[in-house]
């Protein structure tokens, strides 16, 4: 029974990956709309884009980690 609850928890934690996907999409979409308005400034901002994507993605990875812990460590 305990294991079953841990699996449900792991599934719930995996929702976090979807939330991270929304975040990454937001960053990339806003970058693209900005880049299309001012293409000459786009190239200088790719580093910022990747940093933003990395920060948004990190929390999704945390969610993935929590679900892994619930699957294998609990």
């Amino acid at each position, binding site marked *: 029974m305990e294991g079953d609850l841990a699996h449900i928890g792991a599934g719930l934690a995996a929702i976090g990956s979807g939330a991270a996907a929304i975040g990454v999409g937001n960053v990339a979409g806003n970058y693209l709309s900005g880049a299309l308005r001012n293409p000459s400034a786009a190239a200088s901002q790719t*580093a910022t884009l990747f940093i933003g994507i*990395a920060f948004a993605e990190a929390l999704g*990875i945390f969610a993935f980690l929590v679900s892994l812990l619930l699957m294998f460590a609990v």
Partner: protein
Amino acid sequence: MATEAEGGGLVFHPMDQFIVKPVFGDGAVGMFTFTNMALWLLLAVVCVIALMVLGTSKRATVPSRIQSVAELAYGFIYKMVEDVTGKDAVKYFPYIFTLFMFIVFSNFLALIPTSFSPTSHIAVTAVLGFGVFIAVTVLGFVKNGAGFLGLFWVASAPLALRPILAIIELISYFVRPVSHSIRLAGNIMAGHAVLKVFAGFAAITAVAPLSILGITAIFALEVLVGFIQAYVFTILTCVYLKDALHPSH
């Protein structure tokens, strides 16, 4: 977590690929056992050395293929350090370049089928991440003295808000090495687990073609992810280094 492979689940467990085991024999893993982890870490180092030594030994005016790759990688990271951290940080370039080359090579070598991915283990990435954290913190105090604490005291904010902001800044500063290392390990581990899950579906005849297509697509994605995560790790190192050298907001 029980082994459910015999109960109609996947043929092999997707997380089995991350088990650290000895290369020779089946003994227990001790302090000095030569494990598959050690083997692939060593291979990554050998590949980096081979690329840079072979690539720069001839110094031809018209570069050969290997020399172009070496020059491209060098120039790419050099420009990143210059752009993100500033001209005065160029003396820390060797450390950052070493980090990048090591991570990118372990990520790419891990994509060889039946190989082992060292960067999927938090033990490896935590050493890299905490190494950066400790180096940057020590450097910040050596370069700026107590002025390094100005990083946590946001001078542009209203005075009443500053103590609260200082606490938030302090927490976010100490979470840095954790997120820095888990980001790399999590991405690589997740990618390889997904590959193995698709590979497990290939045993079912009805979905085998779809699964093989899936593996091909995910594999291409993993090549991209392996490079981007190395890039992100390096650029965040540059950002943290910039904070240490110029702590004022």
